[in-house]
């Protein structure tokens, strides 16, 4: 897996709280056996109801960094949600906080999901609204988000940061290395061993 240290490009602001995964990708698009084609349906229902939705605005079409609010990605465990964002073009998410399952799913896909303070997010969001072409970067080695010439502190769980920056986010590969340990643990779990004491 490649090392993911910095995502650079431009940003798309969606500074709302409690954006749930049903909104990110409505359930009807989960009727599929692959993740192909989900990108075009990201936020579909919100977009239909809000003609000014950032995901429909020309100036944000090539953005790599999504800026949002508190508790982003709450609700359903559907990995289709970060898959839809990724396939739309998002490579990093900056928000005030994340729901746990969503955060884990992002890390599985190599998408850094970093948190910033609400005031900083408000300012970033305003800067990007004012100048959609402003250069934005998310650096998880230095833990800085840069918007134009302004720098902000960000945070990400150390476990995710470590995995992404070292390129060790093929968790399946890592788990597979521990076959013997897995069997040894299974050997001491009562319900796998007829509850023998």
């Amino acid at each position, binding site marked *: 897996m490649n090392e993911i240290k910095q995502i650079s490009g431009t940003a798309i602001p969606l500074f709302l709280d409690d954006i749930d995964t*049903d909104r990110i990708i409505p359930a009807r698009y989960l009727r599929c056996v692959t993740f192909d084609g989900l990108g075009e349906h990201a936020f579909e229902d919100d977009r239909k109801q809000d003609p000014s939705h950032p995901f429909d605005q020309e100036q944000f079409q090539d953005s790599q960094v999504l800026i949002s609010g508190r508790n982003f990605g709450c*609700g359903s465990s559907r990995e289709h949600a970060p898959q839809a964002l990724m396939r739309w073009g998002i490579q990093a998410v900056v928000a005030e906080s994340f729901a746990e399952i969503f955060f884990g799913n992002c890390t599985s896909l190599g998408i850094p999901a970093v948190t910033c303070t609400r005031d900083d997010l408000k300012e970033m969001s305003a800067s990007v609204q004012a100048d959609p072409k402003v250069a934005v970067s998310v650096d998880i080695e230095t833990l800085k988000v840069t918007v134009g010439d302004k720098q902000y502190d960000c945070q990400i769980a150390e476990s995710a940061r470590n995995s992404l920056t070292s390129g060790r986010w093929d968790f399946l590969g890592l788990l*597979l290395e521990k076959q013997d340990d897995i069997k040894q643990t299974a050997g001491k779990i009562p319900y796998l061993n007829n509850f023998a004491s």
Partner: protein
Amino acid sequence: MSDTRNLFNKVWDLHTVSELPNGQTQLFIGLHMIHEVTSPQAFEILRGRNLPVMYPDRTIATVDHIVPTTSQSRPFVDTLAEGMMSAIEKNCDEFGVTLLDIDDERQGIVHVVGPEQGLTQPGMTIVCGDSHTSTHGAFGSIAIGIGTSNVAQVLATQTMYLNRPKVRRVVVNGELKPGVFAKDVILHIIRKLGVQGGVGYAYEYAGEVFDRMTMEERMTVCNMSIEGGARCGYINPDQKTVDYLQGRPFAPKADEFDKAAEWWLSLASTPDSKFDDVVEFAAADIEPTVTWGINPAQSVGISENIPSPEQFDETEQVGIAEALAFMDLTSGTGIKGQKIDVAFIGSCTNGRISDLRQAAEIAKGRHVADNVKAIVVPGSQLVRKQAMEEGLDKIFEEAGFEWREAGCSMCLAMNPDKLQGREICASSSNRNFKGRQGSPTGRTLLMSPAMVTAAAIHGCVTDVREMLEPAGV
């Protein structure tokens, strides 16, 4: 020295395989439940790497999200849904996983089936590619929802990496008033702690209210832990847990059951157990609770008014205004009396036999209001069968409810059961997100099954307590 670990940490430690230098635990998973929506891509990952399922006998599959609840004959009318059925059938066959398919009477919503079959047991680690896996915590297990990449990892290695959460004890003491149900308790807790209050925590529900609850009521509470941000919620196993499991198909048998029961009970947290946080609520403060907004914390007691944005912290006001606008509800008016178009009884939260009994008790001898479409969707085929043996289907049908086949149905509307346009639905499900019930502009009011039934009968949100007392008393 006595063991001061709570149940969560005892179970976690027992299942720890290894620790990554980054602090994450590789956790052995005792039971992996899969369904048709979040598993096909995971099996593809295994195919891509030429990997088998490591413990097929610790893995069980069913179909629930996309199944129609009217005619279930194959092929399904929805070709996309039919494609998903074929995929899980092929995958389970090829990888040696037991599938409780649509033609198996054990089929149903994965979180109803697990407990019903005795698959869910205390002290287990349980995962499923579904956020409501927290339901299984009702037995004193660590049960968490996972994404599809994790599903592939667990299929291939029976393990996954997790950060150990903190444990918060959520205590509710006292006695619930008549007409206040498990659903009201969990809606109240989420309202008070917030939709993200539980992020980073597992919730241990403790106190007199949970001690008194039946296993099915405990499942309702644990089910919605994730709606409060807690990926996992649990209740310590007690004699009720043991009694529930006795005789279930996948539960241990004979002498082994006795040994199992002894071990299960030994896992419970004790008065010496340590917690990272403790919060307390009084049962007497809990009313029948109804959501008015677009997340499950946006709720009020039935006697309260719909709030206005000014009543909230400044950072929340934009979200509250957005919710009120979407719901088209007016601040300062009572939630009671709000008109509904649809009533839905079912889901992994409230689709079990006791839920249907409570609803039938209210429906009996009454009739659904004109212009209300009301449906009852049992959580599993066995729940459906039991209900029919008790004559509940007749009670519902005579009252004007549609009696359906088992599945997730209108909780998330991946099957043909959907709201239309701006319809507003009194629902016993778990999420009131925008568009959740199938219409992008459809609206959901979450409440207990008894409250849904009351709303169906009156055509508007109703205090079910007014219907519980015999006439003339």
